């Protein structure tokens, strides 16, 4: 199947090459798929979108829309929808005029416009009778968001790009909107790319996640893949919390690897162990158990720094002997700060990463 939108080896730098915003990124999104681009601030997410939409010119690489290169095609002739971070609702136009704008520009006829606008408004659950005549400043944040979406989908773009359009909403509303966006996207079988730096939102709404750092693509996969088998420390830490413990490979045999963690031996069933002698073990807080006494699956010892309660469980912060910090979650809080504890985890929950 031809991807709805594909980018190939995109490169883009700013400030005369001093800032490399996008560094050789390739991606494709299929019809009916939502792909999230996830990464910290400044990693180049917006820049990629702008290049896709034709608002920015790439230094190298290609952008293909339904299989055809659109390099050099100006934005108003591409069939790409973009929902801006600040929504970019036209403040001087009513909701109806905002949504109708694209149709008018495309030369759609009057009667058709009315019908399609109403349809789009209904799709985003803004009853036209109530909302069509409102001015944007008479809308709440969530409603404005819907108008921006309606305005974009009404012109039936080949692909729709969302540039963190919900960053300004509070978490509760953001979750609701994310779910709704997903519903609309599936209903219209649109291809969509969703940019965010919030991994929760990304997981919630997307089929696949592309994790970026410093303009480079770090990993591309389903939310589960990315969480379970992060490609590197950065991805691991960015998708959910992860604590890192330094370890040394002391031997390997029969598909098992022996490690040395601060003097404690650890035996893992892993052929994934890299050749490097120094490795990093990644532990998710919810996979870690704290034990007052050494257990079979104990890995390392640490001193409890503090415990607080958050989101239904207790969060414990421990200091290891080399000063690194380790986070564990538990249902119960049974320890005192200052206490020395063993950190235990099931071998299959331990990730081994290159240092």
């Amino acid at each position: 199947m031809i991807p709805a939108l594909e980018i190939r080896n995109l490169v883009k730098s700013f400030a005369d090459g001093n800032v490399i915003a996008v560094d050789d990124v390739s991606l494709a999104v299929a019809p009916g798929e939502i792909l999230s681009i996830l990464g910290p601030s400044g990693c180049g997410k917006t820049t990629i979108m702008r290049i896709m939409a034709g608002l920015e010119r790439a230094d190298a690489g290609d952008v293909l829309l339904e299989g055809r290169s659109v390099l050099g095609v100006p934005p108003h002739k591409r069939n790409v929808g973009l929902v801006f971070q600040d929504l970019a609702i036209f403040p001087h136009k009513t909701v109806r005029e905002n949504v109708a704008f694209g149709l008018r520009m495309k030369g759609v006829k009057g009667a058709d416009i009315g019908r399609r606008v109403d349809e789009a408004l209904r799709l985003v659950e803004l009853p036209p009778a109530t909302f069509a005549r409102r001015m944007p400043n008479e809308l709440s944040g969530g409603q404005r968001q819907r108008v921006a979406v309606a305005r974009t989908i009404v012109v039936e773009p080949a692909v729709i790009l969302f540039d963190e359009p919900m960053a300004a909403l509070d978490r509760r509303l953001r979750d609701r909107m994310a779910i709704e966006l997903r519903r609309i996207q599936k209903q219209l079988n649109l291809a969509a790319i969703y940019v965010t730096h919030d991994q929760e939102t990304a997981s919630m709404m997307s089929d696949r996640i592309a994790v970026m750092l410093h303009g480079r693509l770090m990993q591309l996969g389903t939310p589960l893949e990315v969480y379970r088998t992060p490609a590197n420390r950065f991805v691991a830490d960015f998708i959910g919390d992860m604590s890192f413990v330094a370890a040394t490979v002391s031997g390997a045999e029969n598909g098992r690897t022996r490690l040395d963690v601060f003097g404690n031996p650890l035996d893992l069933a892993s052929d994934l162990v890299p050749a490097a002698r120094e490795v990093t073990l990644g532990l998710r807080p919810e996979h870690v158990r704290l034990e007052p006494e050494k257990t079979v699956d104990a890995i390392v010892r640490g001193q409890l720094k503090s415990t607080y309660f958050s989101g239904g469980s207790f969060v414990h912060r421990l200091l290891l002997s080399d000063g690194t910090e380790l986070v564990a979650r538990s249902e119960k809080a049974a320890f005192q700060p200052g206490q020395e504890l063993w950190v235990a985890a099931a071998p299959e929950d331990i990730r081994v990463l290159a240092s």
Partner: protein
Amino acid sequence: MIARGRIEPLLLGGITGLLLLIMLSPILTVVVMSLTDGSTLQFPPPGFSLRWYRSAWELLADPADTGRFREALVTSLAISLTVMILASAAGIPAAYALVRHRFRGKPLVEILVTLPLVFPLVVLGISFLVIVSELGIEQGFLRIVVAHVILVLPFVVRNCVASLTALPLSHEEAARVLGANWWRSLMEIVLPTMKPGIVAGMLLAFIVSFNEFTVAYFLYTIDVFPLPVWLFSRSNTSLDPTIFALSSGVILLDFILIWILDRLVGRQGVTL
């Protein structure tokens, strides 16, 4: 950027350049004329020389100052300087009150402060003439200064308002919470951050007052004879290119002042 195309900036730039050239053309002509080596306004000049600058210099350096040029220049500078100081003394606190305080009659005060911007200069000049003659004020310097302060007050207030609005209230409050009384927070926080607006207002006040003709024309006296009026009366007598050389000097001065203005004001921009 692709969005705006490459043609548009060029096109807009071209139109802008052309329009500004037209707007500037009389000034450029004055400069070119000052370099003529003829003695009439023949344009383009038959040849170029600095002779009229020499004659302008002689006028300026004339020890007896028979042409009263130097006197006019000094008078104008003194007026502008005084206007600048008085206008900022009046405008800065007013701007502060307008931005930071809520009080009854504020819309009226706002209108009043902007009024001089649109008040007919002729009426201002004449009514002042009537006032001073009725009150028997013969102080020519003072009356021009007062009229000019009124005239430039909007420039000062509006620029100060612009820069003060850009200063978040939280900065002032932070100073207060850290133990500064109102006066110290004003001196340490408010005034330093308002600097671009204050400087813009002061320089505009100076430039406007220095070049203002209409009001000065009605209010000048035998002893207080500002440069624009001098230039006017001189050009009524003879149009030899000396006056163009002198004018070019004034242009240069204005140019420098506006340049400084922009340097000091920077990104905030000038409010008219």
